[in-house]
């Protein structure tokens, strides 16, 4: 069963350790953007590795490909940095950093996962907000299905 990175919104403290870990593991080009939600949270934007990836459909050079294990990977050699995937991504997780002349794209740290290690962002997470789990396991875990209480409390009810 495929494993994915999950985030518990309540726990994230916005330290950006995940982005640092990603950058140092991927030749100083972070594949991980951050979203700032008013003053309530600052969350990492992980690639969802969609079943029907819009980025792969939009890529004119077939640089984005869905692999057998379900991950969507970007070929370093085929990518020309045209940013079509950036426009196509419905979740806005692909960033426009072209410092390496290619679009940064999460590869789920394939090199580490092959050695039975956690992806860099999950291993480095200081607050325990990120986890790397089987897809089905996560869905069944009712605790983690809860909408983030901490963030909700910022918008509904009192302001902090």
């Amino acid at each position, binding site marked *: 069963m495929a494993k994915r990175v999950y985030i518990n919104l309540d726990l994230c403290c916005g*330290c950006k350790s995940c982005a640092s870990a990603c950058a*140092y593991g991927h030749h100083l080009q972070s594949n991980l953007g951050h979203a700032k939600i008013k003053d309530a949270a600052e969350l990492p934007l992980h690639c969802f590795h969609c079943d029907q990836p819009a980025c792969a459909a939009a890529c004119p050079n077939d640089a984005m490909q869905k692999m057998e294990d379900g991950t969507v990977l970007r070929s370093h050699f085929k990518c020309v940095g045209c940013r079509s995937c950036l426009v196509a991504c419905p979740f806005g997780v692909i960033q426009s950093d072209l410092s390496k002349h290619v679009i940064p794209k999460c590869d789920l740290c394939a090199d580490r996962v092959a050695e039975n290690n956690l992806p860099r962002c999950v291993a480095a997470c*200081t607050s*325990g907000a990120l986890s790397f789990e089987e897809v089905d396991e996560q869905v069944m875990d009712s605790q983690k299905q809860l909408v983030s209480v901490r963030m909700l409390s910022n918008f509904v009810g009192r302001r902090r």
Partner: protein
Amino acid sequence: MAFRAEGDKITALDYDMENPVNHGSLCPKGHKNIEILNHPQRLTQPRMGKKETSWEAVTTFIRQELKLFKPNEIGICLSAYSSNEDALKVAEWAQGAGIANLCVVGDPINEEMDPATLEDIDTADALLIYGDILDLTPVLSKRVNHVKYGRRGNRIVVVDEKTTHTTWFATDRIKQKPAGKIAAFANSKSGAIIFAGTPEDAVPGYTDKKRITFYPRGNALGVNKMVQNKIPYAEMLKKIEGGEMKALLMLGEDVCTVTPAIERKIKMLKLVVCADYFTGPSKTEADTSILLPLASQFESGGTYLLSGGREVSLAPIAPRVGSKTNAEIVETLHG
């Protein structure tokens, strides 16, 4: 923190999941250490002005130059990131040379009455946090989360005027600094204070409870403990501004990166020596400035005193790149 190496050279970071303090997690500051080790712009040879030179030549030059000044015209700024051994050695050397103007670039240390340990935070029912502790020490966030979500009724009181990453986790937030003894702690420059205790402690009268202080500058606790005879950092800045200093040794870091306003005055000094990893703002332009390559903590090892009284000893794990520690630098200046 663990490393992956190819031969002698450390090439990548790894995460020590068995570590009892951080459980493998690593903050952005921790990640930068690997960059210091292999950075292409890392200082590997001493520099005089813009010319590279040898250690022998530069130490001879500094020795001769220092003899031209009176001891009260020489100042030493020691970085709070130094190891305990380095700090002790530098303090001894300064005392031997009669240099009284020694300061630590870091906050003054408050005496801990009843210091809490990290384990005390795990078992606490209530935390009173002053300042943006999770920005300063993100590795602590797992423990703060454990208190917040561990048991119904646990409280986290955060004293901060601004909305910060730490106030996101507050169950109670105090925007105004409280009066009395609390204000005395709140106004101290110690960065952030965590009080670990029971819910009753989160009201005035808790000051006799356990507390743990996190300092923004590395080994500030250890360095300040080792260096007994020192002047405050602010006083050193005043002396530089007032023109009382003619020579300045910056051991461990460039003061201008901490206090940029002092840069113009430092460039006017007759002798500026700086031991650091990279070139900084005050070092590149002045012709009289001397740059010494500093060994990082992974190249030199040493003992560090951390918050909560934890003392860690690091063994050197990476080969030196022509660099020396602060202790070795002052040893060469003895003659």
